[in-house]
Every structure is written in C-alpha cells, then in structure tokens.
C-alpha cells in the first residue's frame, strides 16, 4: 500500500510543469519503463499498475494533491535561488547499488537526476562482490549436495561422481554480473537518469567536475550531491598481491584457478563465503584470523554452531590470534609463503606454505580524488564523516550543505542494501520529508551452505545495552530440526535465535543459521523496522509446511509480559 501511494504521487508530479527540464521526454521515458523488468524496483512497478486499476479516481486526486503541495513548499524552502540555476536537482557520484537505489527513488520523487560513474555501472556489488559470488555459491551448494553421498542416499537418490568445469563456473559468475549490470543500466536510462561517464570530483559547493583521462572536463551543478563511491578490497601492508597466487575477492570471483590449498586471510563474510566455494570445488583451506576466534562479528552462539557445521567437518584448519604480516606470491619454484605474527606479542609465530592466498581482511573506502579538500572535508581513515542523516561533516564539525555520503564510503554499514536504504533516505530528505535510517533494522546475510543471517543486536550487545539502560533481556531459540520443511529437505541442521525484551516485546535481534536463512530474516527485520512487537507478530499466520515456521515458532516461544495490541489489523475479515 505504501509503495502504491508513493507511485501515485510520482505520476502526479510528472504532470507538474518544472522549469528546469522538459517534462515531455521525462514522462515518455516513464511510460517506457513500465514493461521493463527492473531488478530493484520491479515490485514497485507492479504495485503501481495494480493500484491504478483498483483505486478510485477521487482517491487518487486527493492523495496526490497532498503530495504535490508538500513538494512545492519543500522546494521553496530548501532552495532560495531560482531553480533554473542548476543543471540537475541531484547528482550522485558512483553508480553502485547505493547510487542506483538513490537515483530510482529520486526519479520517483520527481527530481532531475544524473549519476556519474568512472568505471562500470553496478559498482562492487554487481561486478566484484555479492552478485558474482552468489553465482559461485550456487555452484558450490550444488556440488556439496551432489558430493554428500549419505545426504543423497537419505533422499533415495543415486548420483555418480559429480564434477565441474572451472571455466563454465567462472562464465556463469561473469554472465550473471553482466546481466545484472545491463538491467541496472537500462532501468536508469529508461527512467531518464543521465549517466555521465568519467571520474567525478567535487570542485565546490553544489558543483561537480567529471571526465575521462585525456578528455576535457565537464562541470555540472546540482542542488544536492550524493557521494556513493563505495570501497575497494583492503590489503594490509606487507602483503604483495600479484592477482595470480595472492589475490583479493576481485580476482577470486573470476575463478581463474582452483588451488589445492588456499589460505584465506580474514574469517568474516567474504572469507567464509569463499571457503564454502573453494572447499566445494576441492580445495583445502587455512583461515588466518587476527582475532581470537573465527567469525568475529557474528553472535557467539551462531558462530559456534556455524564453526561446527561450516569449518570443522570440512577440509579447513585455522590460525587465530595471528596477523599475516608478510605474504610472498609463488615464484621461482616456491609456493606462496605467509609469515604469521602473534597478534598480542607481535612476535613471529609460524610460516605457512600454500598454493594461494586470498586476502579477505575487509574493504577500504574509495574516496581518493573526490575533491573533498575543495569543500574542507577531511576523511577519517578514508571514510567520509557523516551525521545520522548522511549529511557530510567538514573539518570544523559543521554540516556541509547539500552534500551527502552514502554506502561503503561513509563506513556506517558496509552492505549494498544499507547503501541503497541510505540513498533512499537522503532522497526523502532532499524531497522535503525528514527521514533517518534505522540501521538496527538492516539485515545481513552470509551465503554459506547453510546460510547465516542476522538483524539487530547480538546477544552480548543486547545484554550490554540492557545493563546500561536497565531493562531485562530474554533469548528464545528454535531448531530447524523441528521444522517439517527442513526435514523434508534433509537439512535439519540450524538454529534461529531471538533476543528480545520480555517487558514490552521489542525485538532486539534475530540470528538465523540454517537452510535459506538469508531469505528468512526479513520477517524479523521488517518487524524491527515497523516497530512490530512479538506479542502481535506471533498471531501472524505462516503457510505450512514452510521454513518460515521456524520464525513463527521462534516468536511463539518468546515469553512476553505485555498483552497483544487490541487490534493489530484494522478490520478483521471473516469468511
């Protein structure tokens, strides 16, 4: 319903004459966009098409006129200078998932939008991150299943030896990336977003220069600017990346070779996902983790279970509490040599000889050459400092007007969908509606087999907060072993964990490890985002038998003192 409303106001807005661009071309572009299959907004389009059929005419006029009046007042307040003086309402630097999400929403809000990209559309996620890695993980998941003889046998299946063609797997990942990339490009073009090619640099307030090397620069102006330049793999010093035997995720996703033995430096999301891929394809893996335990950042209980399922039975060993201080690529007939140093004593500890090393120590913001010095902004370890509304803060701690930074470049939450959410939030503000992203409602997922997903706080975080603020914390758990669908799939290994306040039923965090955990988390993240309490959501009905019943049981097993709201649904319908 919500999306239908916003789409309606959008359609109305396009008919309002705007002085700074020709609305004719714009509205025709919109008409074009409808039949296109858009990855990020496909659902919204559908909702629009549906609602326009069912909504009564008067309702539409009423709703949209409200939106219209708001818009006019917003632009009058937010912009003292005449509208004409800017080339665009909004310029986004960086066409990754964050920039793309912001651009689509900006169009929906009726803003004339341009996006500057110096490389390929889609950014890290689409070209060198989540998207191609999902293709590899789809392969690894199937390989794992086909190789697990007893799993197959338990289902009554017989499969002769499973094998794979490396180039075929690599092509699948590459094809997926280009498909998603062209979808993204087309969706923006169809909506009338100008894609400006070249490296964007801020030359002054509301002014950006862009251009390719060797070509004259173009200067464009915009009322508001969003920095969405993303990040690149972080390589600690002492590590020599040659792209062949010592690689980052950028190279690994091309899957140019499958080593017999690969060391993965870092056991976070990226490292874990690659360990899943490599072990399924026959490699042995050694993790090198600087912290004292593997999978830092995950809820400890989930981490423990994940280690039992994802690490211990596989051909994986690990060194924790050590830094890889020096990594030399394989050459002169020698293997890759990794020098380990104790993280605490800083003394050399061990040397490893492996066939390849993957550096998965995290990502560094890509903010060099942005021209931030022109507007007196100093980055912190490369990150652009922002407030909770993504407004950029300058060296004096003051807000830089009309400048925002979203996604990996601000480092708040380095996830593609977080960047997109931040982008949408910024566009809401630019369009005159105050909005703050609730980062605790943003889910995260690790696509191992089985998957790990989470939203909100971990148990230790929740207990720390509870201690400070003086409330009680309870934990509920359910097992996938008790779920019919999971057992039918013969995938009963898994746990869902709910951290909540027993006094008022607030969901503080949900962590899932198990089959399709990444798809299951959204019921919890939506509940957190919308403020739904456990005592209400537990009455929601889930189809049987589905994996979603794991969460159903989870909510039902929570013991909340507060009674259910009198009527969560406005009008019950009896049939």
């Amino acid at each position, binding site marked *: 319903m919500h999306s239908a409303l916003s789409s309606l106001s959008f359609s109305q807005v396009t008919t309002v004459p705007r002085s700074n661009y020709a609305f004719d071309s714009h509205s025709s572009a919109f008409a074009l966009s409808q039949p296109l299959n858009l990855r990020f907004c496909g659902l919204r389009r559908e909702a629009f098409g549906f609602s326009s059929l069912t909504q009564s005419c008067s309702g539409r006029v009423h709703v949209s006129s409200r939106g219209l009046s708001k818009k006019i007042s917003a632009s009058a307040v937010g912009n003292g200078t005449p509208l004409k003086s800017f080339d665009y309402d909004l310029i986004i630097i960086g066409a990754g998932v964050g920039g793309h999400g912001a651009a689509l929403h900006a169009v929906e809000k009726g803003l004339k939008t341009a996006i500057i990209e110096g490389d390929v559309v889609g950014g890290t996620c689409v070209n060198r991150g989540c998207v191609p890695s999902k293709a590899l993980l789809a392969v690894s998941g199937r390989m794992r299943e086909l190789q697990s003889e007893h799993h197959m046998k338990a289902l009554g299946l017989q499969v002769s030896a499973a094998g794979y063609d490396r180039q075929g797997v690599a092509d699948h990942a590459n094809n997926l990336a280009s498909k998603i990339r062209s979808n993204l490009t087309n969706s923006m073009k169809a909506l009338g977003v100008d894609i400006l090619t070249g490296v964007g640099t801020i030359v002054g307030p509301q002014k950006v220069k862009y251009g390719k090397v060797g070509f004259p620069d173009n200067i464009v102006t915009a009322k508001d600017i969003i920095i969405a330049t993303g990040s690149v793999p972080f390589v600690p010093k002492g590590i020599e990346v040659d792209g062949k035997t010592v690689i980052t995720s950028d190279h690994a996703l091309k899957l140019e070779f499958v080593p017999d033995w690969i060391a993965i430096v870092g056991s976070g999301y990226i490292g874990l996902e690659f360990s899943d891929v490599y072990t399924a394809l026959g490699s042995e893996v050694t993790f090198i983790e600087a912290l004292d335990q593997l999978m830092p950042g995950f809820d400890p209980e989930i981490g423990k279970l994940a280690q039992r399922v994802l690490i211990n039975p596989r051909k994986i060993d690990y060194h924790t509490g050590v830094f890889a201080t020096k990594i030399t690529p394989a050459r002169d007939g020698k293997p890759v040599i990794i020098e380990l140093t104790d993280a605490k004593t800083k003394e050399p500890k061990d040397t490893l000889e492996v066939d390849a090393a993957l550096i998965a120590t995290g990502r560094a913001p890509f903010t060099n050459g942005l021209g931030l010095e022109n507007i007196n902004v100093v980055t912190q370890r490369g990150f652009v400092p922002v407030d909770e509304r993504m407004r950029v803060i300058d060296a004096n701690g003051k807000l830089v007007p009309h400048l925002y930074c979203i996604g990996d470049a601000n480092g708040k939450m380095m996830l593609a969908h977080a960047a997109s959410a931040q982008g949408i939030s910024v566009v809401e503000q630019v369009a005159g509606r105050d909005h703050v992203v609730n980062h605790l409602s943003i889910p995260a997922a690790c696509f191992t087999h089985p998957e790990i997903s989470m939203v909100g706080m971990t148990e230790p975080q929740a207990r720390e907060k509870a201690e400070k603020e003086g409330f009680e914390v309870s934990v509920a758990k359910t097992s996938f072993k008790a779920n019919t669908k999971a057992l039918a799939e013969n995938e009963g290994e898994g*746990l869902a964990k709910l951290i909540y306040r027993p006094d008022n039923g607030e969901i503080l965090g949900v962590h899932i490890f198990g089959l399709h955990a990444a798809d299951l988390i959204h019921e919890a993240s939506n509940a957190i985002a919308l403020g739904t309490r456990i005592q209400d959501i537990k009455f929601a009905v889930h189809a049987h038998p589905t994996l979603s019943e794991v969460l159903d049981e989870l909510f039902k097993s929570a013991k909340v003192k507060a009674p259910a709201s009198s009527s969560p649904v406005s009008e019950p319908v009896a049939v």
Partner: protein
Amino acid sequence: MASAFLSNTTISFSSSLSSSPLPRLLPSISSSPIRFKSNPRRILTVRSKIREIFMPALSSTMTEGKIVSWVKSEGDKLSKGESVVVVESDKADMDVETFYDGILAAIVVGEGETAPVGAAIGILAETEDEIAEAKAKAASKSGASTPSAPPPSPAPAATSTPAPPKPAPAPAPAPVAEGPRKTVATPHAKKLAKQHKVDIESAVGTGPYGRITSADIEAAAGIVPSKTNVGPAVVVETTPAAPPKATAAAAAPSSLPPPVPGSTVVPFTTMQAAVSKNMVESLSVPTFRVGYPVTTDALDALYEKVKPKGVTMTALLAKAAAMALAQHPVVNASCKDGKSFTYNSNINIAVAVAINGGLITPVLQDADKLDLYLLSQKWKELVEKARAKQLQPLEYNSGTFTLSNLGMFGVDRFDAILPPGQGAIMAVGASKPTVVADADGFFSVKNKMLVNVTADHRIVYGADLAAFLQTFSKIVENPESLTL
C-alpha cells in the same frame, strides 16, 4: 534410532517449543536440567579429581542421547565453559559445556553412539598424572556399559589399541622424513592424522613441495598401525585385565622350540590380535562342514549383464545367500549360551575382506531386502571405508552369516572357520568348466563352483545345511530372482 528420531520430530512440527525451551548450558543457570557435573555421591568415593561427564538431559522427554561429535579430543585441555561434546536429543543438537577445568582423559561413548541420560560418556582428569587412572576407569566403564556386545569381529586398528603399558616395538622401521625443513601438512591431512592417531612427523610427504597430503596420512595409517600405540584404550572391548590374556593366547605357541636363529619377531597389530583371539575362541564351538557343487552358467551370464551397472560378484553371492537364508532361518541363527537358539530378525551378510596385513568383515545389512544395485553400491562404500579404517562397529560386527570367497585366486574348494557369534559361514571356490552328465546320460561342459559351509552343530544340523545349500544352488542356477 534414526527412524525413531525422525518420527519424533515430525510429530512435533506444529507444536511450539515454548513448553520446553532449549535449556541454557551455561553453568550460571543452576536450574538447568543438565546434569553434566560430577555426581556428588561419586565424588566421595573417588580420591583423586577424576570426574565423569554424564549424558545430559536436554529436554524433559529425553531418555537417551546420541553423541553427534566430540568437540574435544582425548588429551585436550578443557577450561570451564568450553564446549566438549555435541549431543543430539529428540529436538536438537546441543553443545555441552564443562563445569570444570581439566583434561579430557577418555571418551567412553564414541561419536554416533547412544547413551542413556545420566550415563558416563567421558572422563575428565584434573591433572596429567591422573590420566592413566581415568583411562582405566573409562575402560571399565565401557566394558560395563556394553557387556553383552563385545565385537565378535576383528576391530579396525584405528579405534582399538592394545593396552598402553605394552612397550612399542622399539626398532620399528619408522620412515622418518624430517629433514631440516619443517613439516608441512594440509588441513585435511592434519584432520585425518588426528582421527587415525597418526603422528604427522612420521608421515612421508609426497604432495607439492614435499607437503603431507591426506593420501600420505592414509598410507601412513595403513602401513604403520603400530604407531597408534599412544592412543588411549577407551574403545577396547575388554577390561584392562584382558589384553594380557589376549597376549598370552597369542604367545601360547612360544612353548614351541625356540625360533630358528636369524628369524624376526613382529608383534601382532591390533587387528591381527583380534583375529587371533577370535580364531582361538572358535575352538569351543562344535562345527561340521557340508559341501555342494553349484552350476554357475546362468549366474555368469547374469553377471556379464549387470557388471556394467556396477554389480559385483560379491553382491550377487551375498544376495543369493541372503535369499536362501530367508527360507532357512536356522542357518541365520546363532547359539549364544549353548542352551538356546537365537533367531536373528535381520539377514546381515558379513563378507571377509583381506586388507593390509589384516582381515575384516564389513557387513551388508538386510541383504535380503536391498536390491542388487543398492547392495553393490553399499558394498563399494563399505570396502572404501574398510580401507580407510573408518568402519563403524555396527558395520563390521553385526553379521549373522559370513561369506568368504577365494574363487578369484583359482582356489577350487576350501574350508572356513566359523566366527564366534554366528551359526554358519560359507566358503566359495572358483567356478570352473567341468564335464557333467545329466540324468539322461548326456555329457556337457558346465561351469561348476564348489561351496562349503561350516556350521555350528548345536543349532544347525546336517539336513538343515543340505536344504539350505539346495535352495542356494537353485537360486544361483536360476538367478533372475536376484535382480527383482
């Protein structure tokens, strides 16, 4: 076990877990139903600080639990709050944490095995000095907890070892590969080494850059099983008093004249010792033998047809024997006490296999019920597991009838010794072209195979065995029923 577990959980699909929330295992929750702490009564009687780890009650309905995996290995140091073992209840797998610091001296109930709630599943020693005592305790525990089922078949060397005090053969030809370079072993090799208790330093690395790969460890485990002497004696089926007995039995022939000068004495491996023990035990059973010629032309023809589908002669013979046994249950029975028949509800065909320096009998369970292809598949898996020394006890000691085939070597007939706990064993010779005369006096050449069954005459009589062999022969001569 598995099916009972499955049905249990499927029944509970719609019920919420709220009635029995998963118990917290942290020691701070004193009301937790977990009883993984030392029994106070026991503490009074035990002088040193050796504690038993009990099977915890993970839910109110749980009566027994299965050990999914031991997170810690024997000899590992434990600190309070660490996960030690993963237990499967009717609802979930749970980590069980220790309440005490110490050393995991012995594992009493191994992975995949089941123990009732409250039974000791492991022994925790406070200091290294107490490990030996704890192990002795563990041995008596495991002996006491499974008194009725000593594995009758040879055990794989990896899981049972002679008593630690027995000195290792000092001049063992240990291939020492330690050069000035440090040993490099792959993650899987390290895991295998731990599992098979192979000293990684003693393995020869044949992988790239001389590193030790999983294949090297497997080779080392097969070639030098005596290296496993350091392993604790937890799964040994007898009490610590028994190994000397076994040694005595093995050493009995030492009353013979002294060995010829220049001969070498090589002690038995665990597996060889177990074979020896079983063979001596078999002398207490009155056995007799019945031979029977079987025409195999039809079987050979069938074999040629199904061979491309992965069916082996072993599977064909096992299937034929199982089908014959189904009609003659007494041959599938055993005599446990000399006073009664024990009829087995399943037909489990044990097949003798020679592996590196030993003999093991992987078991094809329910061979009468499985179809030929599944049976062949199963057999392949069992042989692989046997080679890797990964057979579970149930996979080598649950046989109700044994098949031994030396036909592939050209042996025309032989005679097998009945293994303890079974009623009969079949020895199969080679199938050879033979001139036969039929009832009308016509001569022809047919492939004939001699089978010879040894049986326990306390329960199986001559006529029983003859009738069984006749059925077996009919099945082999008309083998179409094997493929049904």
